[in-house]
């Protein structure tokens, strides 16, 4: 592969990370929950693609396993679970928001800038292929965090949590070419369990309040 110089490789990794950020914004702008789930599956697919690229460029074998796990767990299993939850709860769209969509988008734009400003001093020291992705990874984590605060339905918050996790995985790949395999396996297992528990919790919320609005939880008394 003579044409695949480190420079072009780094640009391809940047491109993959940018696709992740693009889907992030699509999730923030989207109100229909089923579309949010589809977008999350797509984002995970882009994440797996970026990770595979990093594995190929650096020759770090175990990232291939992590990428394959990403596809299985985050693009297939978790979206399937989420679709079942949405189907059972019969919630189709996010109607109540703490922050409306255009304002959320502007705030997310500001968060991306913040992430870039924070990582700027670190980036200039780095010599890794993936150093630019670090800023994007931080931006995705911040956007996921913000979405969890800004939305009231439990399902959207769960998706935002998973988006945050995607950002962390990208960050780990960007900062250190992936964590040790055993850690990554543990994280995948945790995320899967977390998604399942949050799914069950959402169902219980629906049973208790006839709504998946998490602000109702403040009504709970002993």
């Amino acid at each position, binding site marked *: 592969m003579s044409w695949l110089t480190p420079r072009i490789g780094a*640009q391809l990794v940047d*491109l993959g990370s940018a696709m992740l950020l*693009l889907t992030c*914004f699509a999730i923030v702008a989207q109100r229909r929950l089923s579309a949010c789930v589809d977008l999350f599956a797509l984002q995970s697919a882009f994440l797996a693609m970026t990770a595979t690229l990093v594995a190929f460029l650096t020759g770090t074998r175990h990232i291939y396993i992590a990428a394959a796990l990403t596809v299985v767990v985050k693009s297939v299993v978790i979206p399937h679970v989420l679709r079942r939850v949405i189907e059972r709860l019969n919630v189709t769209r996010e109607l109540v928001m703490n922050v409306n969509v255009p304002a959320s988008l502007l705030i997310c734009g500001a968060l991306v800038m913040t992430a870039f400003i924070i990582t700027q001093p670190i980036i200039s020291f780095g010599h890794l292929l993936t150093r*630019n992705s670090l800023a994007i990874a931080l931006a995705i984590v911040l956007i996921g965090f913000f979405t969890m605060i800004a939305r009231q339905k439990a399902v959207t918050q769960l998706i935002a949590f998973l988006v945050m996790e995607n950002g962390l995985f990208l960050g780990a790949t960007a900062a250190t070419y992936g964590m040790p395999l055993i850690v990554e396996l543990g994280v995948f297992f945790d995320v899967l369990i977390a998604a399942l528990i949050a799914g069950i919790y959402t169902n219980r919320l629906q049973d208790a309040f006839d709504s998946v609005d998490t602000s109702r939880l403040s009504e709970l008394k002993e």
Partner: protein
Amino acid sequence: MLIPTILSAIVLSVTQVLVLVMLAPLIVGLIRKVKARLQCRRGPSLFQPYADLAKLFRKQSVISSTTSWIFTATPYIVFGSTLTAGLLVPVFVAQVPLSFAGNIIALVYLFALGTFFLILAGLDAGSAFGGMGGSREAIVASLTEPAMILSIFAIALTAGSTNLSTIVHKTALLEGVATDPVPHLMALAALFIVTLAETGRVPVDNPATHLELTMIHEAMILEYSGRYLALLEWASAIKLLVFLTLIANVFAPWGIATDPTPLALVVGGMVYVAKVSLLAALIGLIECMFAKLRLFRVTDLLGVAFILALLGLLFFYILQD
């Protein structure tokens, strides 16, 4: 300038505009055909828009007695400004002879001039629908403009010039893109949304219906008939094609003729038609996949476009090294 004589420059300019003018109804026909096929209909022939235009040109036009000169002048102004915008965009040759006359900022405001007069004409006839369509168009236009300017600036920065010919020429010779593809990706997504909004395609406006609740562009031209209507329809088809040309040639100009040899010109022309047809098919696909947005949700979509364009600009500064 690459082209040595003034004569060949004139010929080239005229040919590029003629291609735009003649190809525009075909592209509209293609979008309709793709849409019809995806909806399991046979759909009208690809050349139906030409027949429609010919029919409208033969018909007598009825003009309301309450209208002023703006109403009759608008179709010519809209057609003229769109055509002038077409002169500035490289179609199948990277270097447009008239490129010294205006850059991308001029292009954006030539379109804005047409939109402005369309809004005035919508108000001029005094019908309720015209005013409604005009106010809606004003919302959409004011929201697309920043997104469009920013997305084109992101591209202009990578090429180091706001001149469209220079941008396309440099990108075609891989002088600009070598920096980074990320700003391009963001700006492409933004410009595509802007194109859908500016040309009144499905998520923003539906060109196929005349439903009071939803129409934007159709509401403004409701009072027009005969040759005036034909001119406006033709102008909106050309506007669509100019936008598609802009996307095709600014973001993926490969194949465009970078020097005026006959072979390069033929290849450039064929590649151009292929690229534009592909984009038109994509628009047809999108029109099938998505429903029209509620009017007040259009701002969300255009907000996404604006933020993406802004990020494109930001990425240019961050990722350059």
